[in-house]
């Protein structure tokens, strides 16, 4: 239906937005590639919706410029931008049937009746709403309303589709199903998707790139594995999932990485440490650490005591305290957790040198 070439390429240049004296967005620059699936991720109030509204043209930025395919669209009104948008809460037309809702953008564009009929039919089929064409939005379930909103936003083949927390009102299983459908729609249409969420697992699962916001600032943009494994700072590291912070002393560059002392034991790290010298924080994800009876001299490891466990079904989350009092959480197979707890204070936490990354001590 959609030629990938028609997907838009968007460039935000130094975008800022103030509401009175409040800075909702600050000097935000971001390139969104053609056909990309970009997720805007951040805590509540971080400016995600504001940025999306600026992209759609509903909100004027206080400063900065916006380009679509190289054309300055900063002052172009929303109705001429032709961005598809799915609002939180769907914003369907309550007085129009499913069919009429989906036909609306085509009617506005004065398409012929036969073309409208054909394209609405295709779209209804594509989002799995066959048999519901004549219903009003109030007669549909939440998931079905969501599909109507998606269909309505995609039917006119927009260069970019903007989605503001589209799944936040859906239950978990439906959410998973809709996420899969979104991914499929993205591949089929080839359109540029900009997707807002504050659910980090949703962001990592869906996107080609993730942009992380906090307090109106763009902290980092990158592929899901980049931002997860190499976060730019502590906020990003912690926001993307649980993470352990271990103090490391005397960090200095070494062959392909860095070395330092963690709880008086030498540790090797593969990550780069150009900017970091002396004391630092080693951040490691719970799933990258394991429990061992002992650690050899050239292996990264520290002694710890298991204090509590949380059964999660597929694995167990084990809480430990190191000798020097740092709290660590690891995710381990269920039987490992049970035996670690029974052994009391004599377990070792180990991790491979290529896992983990260094953050400046106490820095953000």
């Amino acid at each position, binding site marked *: 239906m959609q030629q990938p070439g028609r997907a838009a390429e968007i460039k935000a240049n130094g975008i800022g937005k103030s509401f009175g004296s409040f800075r909702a967005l600050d000097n935000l620059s971001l390139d969104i590639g053609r056909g990309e699936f970009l997720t805007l991720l951040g805590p509540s109030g971080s400016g995600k919706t504001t940025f999306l509204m600026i992209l759609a043209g509903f909100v004027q930025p206080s400063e900065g410029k916006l380009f679509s395919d190289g054309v300055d669209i900063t002052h172009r009104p929303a109705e001429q931008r032709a961005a598809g948008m799915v*609002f939180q809460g769907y914003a369907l037309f309550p007085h129009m049937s499913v069919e009429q809702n989906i036909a*609306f953008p085509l009617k506005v564009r004065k398409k012929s009746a036969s073309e409208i009929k054909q394209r609405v039919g295709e779209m209804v089929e594509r989002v799995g709403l066959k048999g519901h064409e004549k219903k009003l939005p109030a007669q549909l379930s939440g998931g079905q309303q969501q599909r109507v909103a998606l269909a309505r936003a995609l039917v006119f083949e927009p260069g970019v589709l903007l989605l503001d927390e589209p799944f936040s009102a859906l239950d978990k299983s439906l959410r998973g199903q809709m996420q899969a459908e979104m991914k499929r729609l993205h591949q089929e249409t080839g359109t540029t998707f900009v997707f807002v969420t504050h659910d980090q697992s949703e962001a990592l699962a869906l996107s080609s790139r993730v942009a992380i916001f906090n307090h109106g600032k763009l902290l980092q943009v990158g592929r899901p594995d980049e931002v997860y494994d190499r976060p730019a700072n502590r906020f990003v590291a912690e926001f993307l999932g649980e993470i352990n912070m271990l103090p490391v002393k005397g960090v200095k560059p070494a062959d392909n990485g860095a070395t330092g002392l963690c709880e008086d034991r030498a540790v090797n790290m593969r990550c780069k440490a150009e900017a970091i010298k002396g004391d630092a924080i080693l951040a490691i994800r719970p799933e990258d650490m394991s429990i061992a009876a002992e650690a050899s001299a050239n292996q990264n490891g520290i002694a710890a005591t298991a204090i509590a466990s949380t059964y999660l079904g597929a694995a167990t989350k084990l809480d430990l305290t190191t000798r020097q009092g740092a709290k660590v959480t690891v995710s381990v197979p269920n039987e490992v957790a049970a035996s670690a707890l029974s052994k009391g204070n004599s377990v070792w936490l180990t991790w491979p040198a290529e896992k983990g990354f260094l953050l400046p001590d106490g820095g953000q």
Partner: protein
Amino acid sequence: MRGTLSDRMGAALLMAPLLLFLILAYAWPFLGVVKWSFTLPTPGLGQYHALLTDELVQSVFIRTLRIAAIVTVVSVTAAYAITVVWVRGSPVQRVLAEFCILVPFWISVLTRAFGWVALLSNRGLINTWLQSIGFISEPLTLVRNEFGVIVGMSHFLIPFAVFPLASAMRSLDERVLLAARGLGSSRMRTFWTVFVPMTRSGIIGSALITFVFSLGFFVTPAILGGGRSVMIAELIYLRIFQSPDWGLGAAISVVLVVFVGALMALLFRYVKPKQLV
């Protein structure tokens, strides 16, 4: 709201004086009127038969319906425009609109009717002005006819038409309008194809209120119609106090009350009482 039994008895007690007053002042006398309609001057359905055959009564009924319909269209249209400004305008516009809506409530219906006479009569402000700029040579007949009645009644009823509309516009989800614009719809098109249909319940409520009020108007048509554009309430007055033909006056009253009651029932099917204020 569901209260306990004692809560409800408390509420009933508090409302009792008002109910008693309504029964004594309206329901009881109305039963008397119903009785007259069947008994005066002789018992039977004679007056209702007369109603169906009397050409004067019928022409007044038709005129009343016509005027009420025109006044409804005029009032709801004007009220819609004012309400859009009141609910969605800039802060300054809102204050101005609110002022325009509230001021008429402070001026009595009599004062306003005579005000319109002063404006519209042959030697009134409008005719004098139009003549002085040479736009017309003979004064236009703007009052003591249906036109004057429609102007005066619409002016009175516009503020009442505003409230159901305002309530419908306030409960409308702003994002739906944004969605329409985002889908490429111009402001005009969004207004006609999304905004207006979404305020439908307000339009219906507003129209029914205006229509029902119009049917029973007395003072305004009596003054601005100048006896040449008699509406149903004035006809009842004439039958009771001047002819006098109490039986026919009573029968017309009963028909009017039943008709209005039916319209009210319709009204409350479309709008909840709290949307009217």
